[in-house]
């Protein structure tokens, strides 16, 4: 009998100890991780949004299920940003942070999370690719050349840039509809 008991005891004890260690480690690192991720996100925001003097992630608003971060200068809204994702990526979902200035033009794009093939699709997080989106104001035009847009895809990897373009155009369209009043559009 004691052979079986020893097995139960051993597995349970080891698991419990590991649970304890993990719980402690998680608690100890929880704030630090949240802090680091927030800093990361803020860095992404500042890169994407035009200059601002408020805390965009605090002035966030929920519109139709999407959180939109608002950038302000002395109280006057100077830009908006939102996270959009596209499932059309080669490796799966691609999460993109898109920034728009007060006139409804793209002020910056950053790729937050993607699982594209390293060395191939992951060029989408490169500065030169994302720079292409800056200044565009027509959501319809934002697509890869193959699909009639103006964004040029990389050789050997069309799915990743197409997914990013799709996410950016949807984000721009969403923000323009909600924030840019009729006459400026």
């Amino acid at each position: 009998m004691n052979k079986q008991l020893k097995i139960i005891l051993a597995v349970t004890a080891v698991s419990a100890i590991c649970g304890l260690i993990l719980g402690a480690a998680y608690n100890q690192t929880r704030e630090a991780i949240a802090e680091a991720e927030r800093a990361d996100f803020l860095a992404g925001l500042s890169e994407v949004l035009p200059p601002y003097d408020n805390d965009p992630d605090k002035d966030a608003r929920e519109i139709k299920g999407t959180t939109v971060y608002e950038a302000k200068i002395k109280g006057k809204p100077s830009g908006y940003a939102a996270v959009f994702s596209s499932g059309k990526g080669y490796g799966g979902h691609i999460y993109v942070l898109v920034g728009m200035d007060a006139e409804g033009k793209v002020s910056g794009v950053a790729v937050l999370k993607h699982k594209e093939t390293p060395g191939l699709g992951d060029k989408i997080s490169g500065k030169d690719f994302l720079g292409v989106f800056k200044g565009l104001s027509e959501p319809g035009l934002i697509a890869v050349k193959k699909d009639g847009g103006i964004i040029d895809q990389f050789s050997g990897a069309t799915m990743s840039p197409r997914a990013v373009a799709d996410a950016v155009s949807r984000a721009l369209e969403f923000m323009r509809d909600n924030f840019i009043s009729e006459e400026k559009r």
Partner: protein
Amino acid sequence: MSGLMLLFVGAALVNNVVLSRFLGICPFMGVSKSSETALGMSAAVAFVMMISSVVTWIIEYAVLRPWELGYLQTVVFVLVIAALVQLVEMVMEKTTPELHASLGIFLPLITTNCAILGVALINVQSDYSFIEMIVFSLGTAAGFGLALVLFSGLRERISFSSVPEIFRDAPIAFITAGILALAFMGFSGLVR
């Protein structure tokens, strides 16, 4: 229904767990010397993969998500898989001793078989429903079995051909696997 079929074909052929996701290569290379062990191994892997996917899916949605213990995911999944493999090893030792002997070291290695943990994690991370999870695991197990049996057939043929000294056994096996992977790449684009 067609969505599920696409999911199955996608898991089995398009992103085959071994040839394009690179999961489960160690047993794939180790056991594919003869096709009976290959069949035995893919049956064992399929069995463990199915049960572990179901159990891990239930644990994820019943325990880990409500109590937001996301960080425990890897440890709990691995524990479940390891216990299952140990179970399969004992059952096999009792019921089919010769197959157990021929699988040898590779039976415990199923535990670290990246394919099984990989499938469990993918099921959870891509938020598959219960049915989708079952179909995905079945597809992946079928893909693993297909690749393994095909490859063991190839390797049996290779052992008869005269291979230069330095390429014998492992290197030529990898190069053949590369060509097989190339063939499987033909499936990409079949499912989008």
